[in-house]
């Protein structure tokens, strides 16, 4: 599936400033892996030292928040995947 990943401003320093990156993948996790392969510096924000996906990363497919269980559910051609880091500054 051709999927567009929208990159939040906090991650754009790792994607050479690109706001949208096109990838191919059958589900959000596959898309994320392709993105990491192209922009490996992003990985430290996405995974903890044990290699588990950090819980403070939120995923949205076509603007709807999805849970961790949905990360391996199939995507459709043309879907948009958006992920952001949870923040707490005041």
């Amino acid at each position, binding site marked *: 599936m051709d999927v567009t990943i929208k990159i*939040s*401003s*906090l991650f*754009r320093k790792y994607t050479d400033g690109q*706001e949208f990156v096109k990838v191919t993948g059958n589900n959000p996790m596959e898309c994320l892996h392709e993105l990491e392969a192209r922009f490996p510096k992003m990985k430290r*924000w996405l995974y903890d030292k044990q290699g588990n996906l*950090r*819980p*403070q990363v*939120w995923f*949205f497919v076509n*603007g*709807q*928040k999805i*849970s961790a269980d949905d990360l391996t559910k199939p995507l459709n051609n043309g879907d948009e995947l*958006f992920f*952001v*880091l*949870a*923040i*707490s*500054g*005041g």
Partner: protein
Amino acid sequence: MTRGSTGNDKPNAVISKSAFNIVAIAIEAIVKMLSKRELARYERQILIPGWSKAGQEKLKKAKVLVAGAGGLGSAILTYLAVAGVGRIKIIDGDKVELSNLNRQVLHSDKDIGRNKVDSAKEKLEALNPHISVEAVKATIDENNVFDLVGDYLIVDAMDNLPARFLLNQVAVKKNLPLFHGAVYGFEGRATTVIPGKTACLRCLYQGVIPGKIPVVGVTPAVIGCIQATEVIKYILGIGELLTDRLLIYDGISMKFSEVRLKKDPNCCECK
């Protein structure tokens, strides 16, 4: 009959109670009533469709708690005060530091070392003498949060997730709305929680980026104004709230985007 009582005790008690009620109603009416000076102060906003004098009276009667007198709190408090929210309670346990002053615009150089709540109260009362501001110097914890909130609408202007979760917990337990905002650098987020109806903070957060938070003052100003807007709309009963939606402000691209949230059926707080 007890010592010192008269035969007229009962009728007198009834009369006294009635008189007390009349006085209480009169005081409430006076408190609700807007003075000529207040009407002049709020003239421009009263012109907004759906607002009117009745809306302004609702604001005057409203009780709003702002948890945090920092970057978000500075913007929220300022705009709730000038809008005429009648009773504002500020909670913050910190003192003003030099490194706060790039964003916490309620405080200035001369306030360094003062309690943030005292500094904020002074500025707000100068901005609008028609409102009541209560300053509570306290660090929110599980032992005090329930009493501190009381029956106030809750504005989350905190800078840490544990305190935000405590406010969320009380909001859910007391069925009080919670107006949430958070910032990092040039990016900010906001959403409004209506317990029982919408996703709560626990449905959303499982953790946050660790470490010292970079931030430029304009970001909490933008997000704080959005939170204050939500509070005002909620009190007035107008417009569409930011419920089950997360507004994402990206100051670098100067774009606002929005994503949809939903209640987590397994949420430990609101399921």
